[in-house]
């Protein structure tokens, strides 16, 4: 089951990559479209796939639990199985068309590798979050509901609330708040990381020392990557913790 779906996923990205490149004929525009795909679709697919996989293989997991195996290795194995196969599909599916298109000779290679790296991080994060939701909810429908809601919240609603807050408190110095707000949402974080490459000229238009330090130096890049790693590690730790205590 895992392999079948990851083939579909792979085929989808392959198709997307080919369509983008050969219809657009322009690498920089393709990179912008890809960014939208990566920060919206990758988390969605990661979430749904993670939840689906957990519920579908629940009986098999219970069978495994009867064997003399460590719980953490069972669940971590499942998690890594899903997350890594999804990441592989993403990297190969998008990577192959771009390589054939002549990515290595182009200057967009760094933008593109950054896209793939953040895509991989997002897959790892959202699959882990999905496993957390599934572990905490016995009810399949409820689990799916929460998972979709989580995606919707982080992808759209969070930004809405964030924007409202910024506009409401516009009289106060907000640069630190806005940076912290970005750090707390993995989708925003990945978006900012990609913006650092794509729209740096616009980002530097704002007068603020904190912004300037964050965007103008490699400081922003480093902090963003650290935060993304934290975003992977925390949910995974909770998977281990939760799976040890859970009754089956």
């Amino acid at each position: 089951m895992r392999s079948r779906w990851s083939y579909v996923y792979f085929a989808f990205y392959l198709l997307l990559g080919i369509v983008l490149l050969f219809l657009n004929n322009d690498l920089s525009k393709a990179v912008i479209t890809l960014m939208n795909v990566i920060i919206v679709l990758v988390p969605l697919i990661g979430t749904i796939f993670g939840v689906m996989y957990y519920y579908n293989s629940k009986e098999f997991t219970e069978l495994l639990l009867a064997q003399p195996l460590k719980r953490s290795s069972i669940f971590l194995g499942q998690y890594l199985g899903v997350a890594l196969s999804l990441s592989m599909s993403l990297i190969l599916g998008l990577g192959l068309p771009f390589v054939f298109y002549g990515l290595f000779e182009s200057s967009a290679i760094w933008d593109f590798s950054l896209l793939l790296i953040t895509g991989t991080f997002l897959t790892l994060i959202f699959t882990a979050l999905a496993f957390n939701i599934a572990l905490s909810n016995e009810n399949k429908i409820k689990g799916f509901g929460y998972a979709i809601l989580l995606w919707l919240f982080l992808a759209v609603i969070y930004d809405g609330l964030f924007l409202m807050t910024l506009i409401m408190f516009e009289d106060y110095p907000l640069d630190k708040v806005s940076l912290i707000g970005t750090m707390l949402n993995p989708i925003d974080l990945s978006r900012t990381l990609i913006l650092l490459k794509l729209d740096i000229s616009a980002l530097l238009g704002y007068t603020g020392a904190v912004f300037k330090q964050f965007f103008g130096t490699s400081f922003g890049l480093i902090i963003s990557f650290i935060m993304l790693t934290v975003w992977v590690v925390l949910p995974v730790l909770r998977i281990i913790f939760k799976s040890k205590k859970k009754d089956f």
Partner: protein
Amino acid sequence: MKTFFIVMSVIFMTKLSIAQNITVCKTCPISTLKKAIAHAKDFDTIVVKSGTYKEFDVNVNKPLTIIGENYPVIDGELKGEIITITSDNVTVDGLFIINVGTSYTEDYAAIRVKNSKNFLIQNLVLEKLFFGIYIEKSRDGKVFHNKIIGDAVEEYNSGNGIQLWYSNNVKIEHNFVQHVRDGIYLEFSDDCVIKNNVSALNVRYGLHFMFSNDDIYQDNIFENNGAGVAVMFSKHIEMYNNIFKENWGTASYGLLLKEINDAEIEGNTFENNTIGINIEGSNRINYKQNTFSNNGWAIKVKGACYTNKFTQNNFLYNSFDIAYNSKVNDNEFDKNYWSNYTGYDLNKDGIGDVPYRPVKLFSYIVNRTPETIILLRSMFIDIIDFSEKVSPVFTPDDLMDNNPQMKKITW
């Protein structure tokens, strides 16, 4: 008639035979430029052999041609102004001038032209300078192929590369200016031509106009300056085929227009600037066939701008195409190519069937609360931009391009 010609040619030949060469070198009888000028008669040529000459306050008060061989160094030892030209018809060629004095009460220059006509300043290299070439109340001259490399860090204690003050009809061509305050600065100077220069890494502006009318600048490159070009309080300026690149920063523009009327801006390229063009109080300007690519804001309109026309420009992958801070619009956008355009072309005439609205709601929000820039390209922002596009509330509703091109325009 015949006798007239003979008389003329005799006069001409005697004139030629009077004009003689004076050579300046370390071991010659005349070992300084000052002495050479004192000895010289009108229309003489002074040849300066290579070597280092420690001189300042050299006053060229006769029509002379001063030529340096293998770039002799004129070292001012930071004592003040180095060469001052006060006569008509002076040519200075091939000198290496360094160490101009810095003063806060006087604008010391490496070479200053004062109240003269028909001067030619060419092939100079200026380093460690305060002001470079300072032309005041002079006319009909040429500044050609000079290299000016300063070491300016702050605006208040640095000077300009090439400065014109009340000087008309001067040609500035093929110069290379770096690391000064303003690369080229024109104040009260009309009918000047600025062509094929490279002005880069300057603290303030690459090129700066103040109260100067009817000037042309074309085929120049402005790169990495505090701001590329500032055109202020001037009329009838023509700007053709210049390249404005990588002017990054909080108050950084490719081109800043302030109180400019009746200008032509054609064939220029704006690339990777925080703001491509910043327009304030400028009327009747034609923007034609310019390319704006990968800028933060391609064009930022600050208000009081009327009857400007934007036609056949390419807007490629800018974070924001146009930003307005008001709801009123009196400018015309027509037949441009917008890479963000998402419409269709059913009758295949190369013109999109749906008008394009270049001003987004998000640019209005960013204008109000600059920190929101961090939400750029978020899905939520795309949604609110879309709803604003369908029914404009905050952005000027008549600001649209009715004939957006489907393909990038090539000339």
